[in-house]
């Protein structure tokens, strides 16, 4: 049996017997996906908004009701007094309130629903504008049409987020394969025992790579499946590009893990540093929050991070966004390039005895 095959089998056994590792790599991300999916499901979804209405004037009442009904399917409730309306807003039994007194519209919002009010204000603005025109029996003169481009239309925010999460899990898998698994072997002197044999370091690395790839593919497929089954997300996976991208990304991020392992003196610090960097990257790469709204200098930080491009490439191969072929292959081959340059460094400088 070759060294590679023997190491592969033993790495596989180590992984499958370590229940903690299995849980963290395969099942824990699912917990993440489910929680975020449910939390993010309602974001920006105004069709389910609850509007409270108070009329203290009959004037143009019908016209106003028509405008409201055309604004979208909202949950409407009617109130007798402004006090009741305000209390309802405060108690959050309605999302926002509207009072028509015959000449002006007053809108009431809960000052503290900071993340949600934007959407409600949009609706309110729309109602006010339309009603304004309708009341004076004018229609718009500018004919305007919105055209939605792109392969997948009307997808929710979470449809964009999930591939980002996939990219992040590939990043974690690669980073921690080196600055985690390998450095731990070094710290526990397990690596020493292997190195004093004629075992070629590349055999060990190859075994680790194969296991990681297997894990990454399984977990990404499970994640996609859960996204589709539970949240009705839409993906059109280009399997050819998906496979190539995931392979290059896993290798590339293992290369990044090498840089970390080289930077720190003590192996135990490597995984801590990898953890920190992964977390920071997660925020700047726009995985959970759109980076488009960050100040310019932070956005440029984001653009310089590998994870940002990995996330975009993952969105592309799952059919969620469009990207030029050039850009996709540039990203993929850059990641591969990382691996090609850094793997020999990994074999030479990281897979070696712990200096006491």
């Amino acid at each position, binding site marked *: 049996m070759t060294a590679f095959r023997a190491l592969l089998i033993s790495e596989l056994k180590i992984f499958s017997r370590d229940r903690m590792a299995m849980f963290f790599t395969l099942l824990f991300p699912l*917990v*993440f996906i489910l*929680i975020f999916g*449910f939390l993010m*499901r*309602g974001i920006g979804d105004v069709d*389910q908004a609850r509007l409270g209405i108070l009329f203290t004037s009959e004037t143009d009442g019908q016209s106003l009701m028509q405008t409201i009904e055309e604004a979208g399917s909202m949950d409407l409730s009617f109130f007798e007094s402004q006090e009741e309306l305000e209390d309802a807003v*405060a*108690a*959050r039994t309605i999302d926002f309130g509207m009072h028509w007194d015959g000449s002006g*519209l*007053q*809108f*009431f*919002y809960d*000052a*503290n629903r*900071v*993340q*949600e009010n*934007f959407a409600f204000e*949009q609706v309110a*603005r729309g109602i*006010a*504008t339309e*009603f*304004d*025109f309708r*009341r*004076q029996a*004018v*229609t*718009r*003169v*500018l*004919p*305007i*049409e*919105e*055209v*939605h*481009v*792109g392969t*997948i239309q009307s*997808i929710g*925010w979470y449809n964009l987020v999930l591939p980002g999460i996939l990219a992040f899990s590939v990043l974690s898998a690669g980073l921690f394969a080196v600055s985690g698994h390998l450095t731990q072997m070094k710290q526990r002197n397990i690596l020493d025992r292997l190195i004093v044999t004629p075992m070629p370091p590349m055999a060990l690395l190859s075994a680790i790579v194969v296991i990681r790839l297997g894990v990454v593919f399984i977990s990404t497929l499970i994640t996609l499946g859960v996204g589709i089954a539970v949240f009705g997300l839409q993906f059109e996976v280009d399997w050819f590009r998906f496979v190539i991208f995931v392979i290059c990304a896993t290798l590339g991020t293992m290369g990044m893990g090498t840089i970390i392992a080289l930077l720190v003196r003590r192996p135990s610090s490597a995984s*801590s540093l990898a953890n920190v960097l992964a977390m920071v990257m997660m*925020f700047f790469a726009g995985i959970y*929050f*759109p*980076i*488009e*709204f*960050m*100040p*310019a200098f*932070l956005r440029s930080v984001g653009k310089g991070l590998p994870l940002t491009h990995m996330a975009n490439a993952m969105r592309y191969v799952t059919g969620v*966004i*469009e990207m*030029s072929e050039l850009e996709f292959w540039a990203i993929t081959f850059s990641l591969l390039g990382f691996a090609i340059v850094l793997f020999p460094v990994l074999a030479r400088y990281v897979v070696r005895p712990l200096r006491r």
Partner: protein
Amino acid sequence: MKDILLIARAHIATAVRERVTLFWFLIFPVFLLTILTLIFGQIGEEGEISFDITLLNRDRSPSAETPFSDMIESVFRELATAQDEATQPLFVLHTPEEDADLEGFLESELTELRRGRRAAVLVIPEGFNDTVMGSLIEDSAEIATSSEVGEIDSLRIFMSDTSVSSEYATQIIQQILTEIDRRILIQSGRFSPDRAVSSETHWIGRQDGETPYVDYVLPGIILMGFFMNGLFGVPGTILFSRDRKVLRRYWVTPLSVLRYLAGFGLGHLTLCGLQFSLLFLLGVYAFGATINFAALDTVLLLVLAAVTFMAFGFLIASLAKTANAGMATANILNIPMMFLSGMFFPTSGLPAFIMVIVYANPVSYLLEGLRRSVGVQNSTIMPSIWIVIVPLLWILLSSLVTSRRLKWDVER
């Protein structure tokens, strides 16, 4: 007393000197507060966001009059001009060169839109001015709405569903166009500004406008700091000290477990105080937070939170066999407890089986209580008394389990 104080001091010194601990309990909350405030505090702020859009005006003619397309174009050009050096203009406008092939230009811009490099593409079609003029002259009732697009040369706004900025930009563009529309209607006499419907905004729960984002998020970040300190710091310190036999050296001296716990608790609460101070100062002086934590009920809630999370940490330490198991448990509980509490996202739309977790989670209650006491939450998901009862129940449960199960020394 000296022993208790020195144990507290040792706990604080260790936390501050160990870089990893320092990062997670001090630097990370600071980082998160900064990032969230910068991102979400921006939306709606003028001069901070800029959208790349394209304007293709096909209805240009040197001979004929094109007032409407000109008006639209000039409005957007103005919005693409910086008002002063400090602020960015709302739009970065892309328009074709003088002799450019317009079809080719449109194709390439739509491709850029699809690839996320443009937020929107506006196309004013040929004959647009005539169409608008026509609708001004004729009876308004006969003019088709945008749903009968086939025969009308509409201004097209191309947008992408896969880009958040595209959605925002489109909404803004629609508002701008609506305003232009109104101007045209006023100028043509069809719309009377005197009879316009006035629109007022009222903010319930606050005098001076919507709650600033930093006010809303700061209590949550402070609680998150306490939470992570308790969840990771307590099992981390106790279990690692036990497993490395640091505690064993204490038990051969006259020091009792109770006095050790007192010192540990004092050190832990001091660290929470340090976290609070740092975040509070950052929130107020860097981000302009206006909330006040000085009220008695706020202070008591903060202390209750710190104690509850510390107790929770002891619960984990009691149930874990080894330090690694304890940290793994903490890692598993971290995300669900933090996110299923309303800390970063509202929990109102969650399905029933997940709401169970929200209701069992002490973080939910403490967060609501804290937000209410500093005035950034009006309504209540849960009655006031539960805000105190549920955390106290958790403290009670943790104390019982800890006193029975926590092993203060490793097996020999």
